[in-house]
């Protein structure tokens, strides 16, 4: 056995090694502070380290064998990590872990099929050699679908996204951060690696498909995030949204490449890579922040938080930074990559095909709506969690988390800021990785004059400068603030006025209420189940009637696609069971019918075909099936 291609380390691999390292170091420090919260620390440590190593293994794997080995190791260790706290809340954790296990292996089957075909069963073949085999394979689109199903079930794109809102809340928070921030990106790495190395060149339709999947994921992710009141499920839904945004960039890159617009294509791919990094940074930070809040309040329900900014300032401020970044507000890194994706879509005016040219604005519409809804969602997530009054006793007793966890969060905030300020350097790395994959380098086009202004490569595209914007924004804010200070205005504290009503924790706006208008507008999608529980107030003096309103949204895809598939599978297995338990006379009848079917179909399809005999023979068959097999009872 030769180990020639077991590992390879090219530009793209290096890039994702960098991503994993950036995502893991703050996470490991945070984990150190989170450990006392975990009962099975040995189990946790072993799987955590193996998980990180296996992710590194996936991105440096050089052949199918090592890739699949590390991929599976990554799946299994993350599955075990979800199960870390299984004993605390078995009703939630066990089904979530089972679901994740199923979904990840569903994807694995397709990856395996893909590799079996493109390597002729020789798993030690290098990726470059696979390109030849795949090129000779007549049904390239089949390979593309295998790849999509395999990687997108891990990345969490619609309609394979359903496991995310279950698995992420069930896992311990550092693991959620690592899974959402880093592991989903390993799937994106897979997309890059095998679409470029094995399946290149791509037909136009593939890119369109990726674009459509991306746009749908982005919208559906953010819409379900809005209706969610479990903070970690909310963030998990946002991962779906952001994977969608990455796929929009990726799809645009594929479309431009198929249309022989290499510069625009590189720009779109750089945007997708940049958003991959950005999502790693802010989503890890958000999950850490959510973990800290959960650590202190012992609940995931956003309706029981409130007013945590005062007791947990570090958590709150880092969470605010990540919220601004994920909402794509300037001048943060999230804004920069989303800006690049928008710019690459504006490049669609260079496309000659009119129908495609008219279709891209719909994707722009989807992305813009996603951006708007993301802002709403993070105002909700930050505002309800950290602002206002404490909504529960748990929130009142919350204190700032320990030093390790704070360090982890601050470091990750540093990564967010680094991605913003050092954007030119990162873009140079993405550019170099794409050059390694055979795309033209466009660094000089993006930064034509200085490293401070990021230019779009679409003709007469816009420009943006994160550093200047940040400096000006901070300058103006500082100027205003110190101007105000210099005035020495008298300040007085008083309880909230609110038109003279008494404000209390109960009268505040809740997360459900905040998302109310949007939920009502998208009622056709959400189809919420509303419950109102009415009970007498136990306090005899006040004699109030207490009404508790709760609302639950059933995810559409889960309700339709998954539940129905399960129901059909159940039905089929029931009939198979019935078949297997027939008495012997029935078996004989079945064999008779089978012979009839074979004979008839031979006559019809291979001999002479006429509609009359087809109908006649099918009627005969149906009658004999009804009489002999199903019998009277049916």
């Amino acid at each position, binding site marked *: 056995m030769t180990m020639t291609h077991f590992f390879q380390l090219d530009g793209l691999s290096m890039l994702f090694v960098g991503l994993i390292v950036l995502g893991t170091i703050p996470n490991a420090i945070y984990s150190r502070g989170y450990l006392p919260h975990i009962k099975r620390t040995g189990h946790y440590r072993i799987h955590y380290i193996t998980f990180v190593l296996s992710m590194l293994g996936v991105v440096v794997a050089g052949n199918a064998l090592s890739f699949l080995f590390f991929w599976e190791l990554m799946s299994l260790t993350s599955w075990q990590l979800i199960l870390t706290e299984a004993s605390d809340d078995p009703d939630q954790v066990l089904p979530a872990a089972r679901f994740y296990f199923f979904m990840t292996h569903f994807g694995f089957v397709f990856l395996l099929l893909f590799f079996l075909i493109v390597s002729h069963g020789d798993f030690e073949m290098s990726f470059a050699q696979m390109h030849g085999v795949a090129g000779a394979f007549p049904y390239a689109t089949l390979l593309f679908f295998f790849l999509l199903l395999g990687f997108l079930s891990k990345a969490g794109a619609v309609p394979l996204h359903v496991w995310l809102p279950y698995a992420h809340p069930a896992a311990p928070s550092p693991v959620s951060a690592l899974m959402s921030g880093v592991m989903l990106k390993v799937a994106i790495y897979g997309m890059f690696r095998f679409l470029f190395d094995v399946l290149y060149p791509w037909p136009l339709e593939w890119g369109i498909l990726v674009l459509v999947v991306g746009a749908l994921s982005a919208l559906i992710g953010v819409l379900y995030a809005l209706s969610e009141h479990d903070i970690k499920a909310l963030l998990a839904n946002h991962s779906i949204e952001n994977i969608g945004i990455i796929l929009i960039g990726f799809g645009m890159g594929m479309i431009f490449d198929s249309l022989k617009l290499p510069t625009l294509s590189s720009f779109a791919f750089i945007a997708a890579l940049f958003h991959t990094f950005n999502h790693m940074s802010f989503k890890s930070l958000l999950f850490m922040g959510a973990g800290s809040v959960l650590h202190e309040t012992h609940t995931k329900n956003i309706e029981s938080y409130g007013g945590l900014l005062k007791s947990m300032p570090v958590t709150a401020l880092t969470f605010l930074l990540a919220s601004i970044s994920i909402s794509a507000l300037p001048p943060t890194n999230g804004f920069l990559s989303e800006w690049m994706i928008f710019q690459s879509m504006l490049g669609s005016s260079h496309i000659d095909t009119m129908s495609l040219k008219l279709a891209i604005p719909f994707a*722009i519409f989807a*992305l813009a709506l996603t951006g708007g809804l993301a802002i709403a969602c993070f*105002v909700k997530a930050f505002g309800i969690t950290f*602002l*206002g*009054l404490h909504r529960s006793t748990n929130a009142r007793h919350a204190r700032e988390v320990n030093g390790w966890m704070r360090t982890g969060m601050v470091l990750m905030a540093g990564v967010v800021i680094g991605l913003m300020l050092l954007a030119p350097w990162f873009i140079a790395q993405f550019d170099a990785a794409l050059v390694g994959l055979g795309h033209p380098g466009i660094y000089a086009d993006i930064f034509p004059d200085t490293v401070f202004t990021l230019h779009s490569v679409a003709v007469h595209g*816009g420009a943006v*400068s994160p550093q200047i914007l940040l400096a000006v924004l901070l300058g*103006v804010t500082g100027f205003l603030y110190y101007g105000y200070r210099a005035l020495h*205005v008298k300040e007085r504290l008083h309880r909230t006025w609110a038109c003279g009503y008494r404000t209390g924790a109960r009268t505040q706006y809740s997360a459900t209420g905040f998302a109310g208008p949007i939920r009502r507008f998208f009622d056709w999608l959400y189809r919420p189940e509303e419950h109102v529980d009415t009970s007498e107030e136990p306090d005899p003096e006040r004699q109030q009637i207490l009404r508790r309103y709760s609302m639950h949204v059933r995810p559409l895809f889960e309700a339709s696609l998954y539940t129905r598939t399960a129901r059909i599978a159940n039905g089929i297995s029931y009939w198979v069971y019935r078949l297997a338990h027939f008495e012997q006379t029935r078996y004989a009848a079945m064999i008779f019918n089978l012979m009839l079917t074979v004979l008839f179909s031979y006559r019809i399809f291979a001999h002479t075909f006429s509609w009359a005999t087809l109908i006649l023979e099918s009627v005969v068959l149906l009658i004999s099936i009804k009489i002999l097999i199903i019998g009277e009872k049916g």
Partner: protein
Amino acid sequence: MILYLLTLTLLVFIAPLLLGLIKALKMRILFKRPVSIWQGYRDTAKLMHKETLLSEEASGITRVGPFLVLAPLLVALLFLPPAAEHAYYINVVDAFTLTGLLSLSTFFLMLIGLDSGSSFGGIGASREAFIAALVEPAMVLTIFSVSMMAGDLGIAQAGLNLAHHFPAHHMASFLFAGISFFILLLAENGRIPVDNPETHLELTMVHEAMILDLSGIYLAIIETAASIKFVIFASLFVSLFLPFGLQFAPPLALAIFVGKLLLVAVAVALVEVNTAKLRLFKVPNLLGVAIVFAFLSLITYYVLGA
């Protein structure tokens, strides 16, 4: 450069006047005795002298929030298209960044609304989030279409380019984009079909509800931010959709520019008098109209080239 700074100061100082003008004009049309058009300045001056009353429940967000609401808008002012040809302008910022800056300001405004723990703030923030989310796609599509016509995404350069070949090119798509942008101007600034800036009735208010618990200078800052936001939109509308008169000598060009701003204010006042405020859940229909016009504009541009 001097002209640039002059335009900037002019825009900042004219902002309350525009809102005052709208108010006065509306009252005159309704046969009420109008308030002075200088009322905005008087209010600000009065608020500057008052003490600041802060909510006990509020956190640091309320203390720094107002500055963060105003700052992005002031920054956005720096990058607007010039009022005259050959005037200095900064073209490092494009239309997306500009809308991003406006969203950043709204983001902090919504947080202020949630900060005091009052249910009014929550109402306002929730409604603002709803409207802002639906404004975003219309805004981006309109920008896309205008930038196609202008041949440049840099907002300042786009204004100049449009001025050069106004009104010869792409009249149809230009008009559609203009309609869409005007609706967005009304929606983003909380003017009447979307929000009523003069009401204090909780069923209808959006912007006012968010700032109910602010007072003194903080309130003055937020009100200034609102007027500056209006001036940004008005001046964008003027530079992108009424781009004439830039070629004259700077004083005259500036006068024409101000005249056009006043014209926009009058148009807004007339719309306000003649329409009823929409129910919150009818607002998406109005924004849907804006989205449709933006799409139409793009399609006419692509297909007909008109």
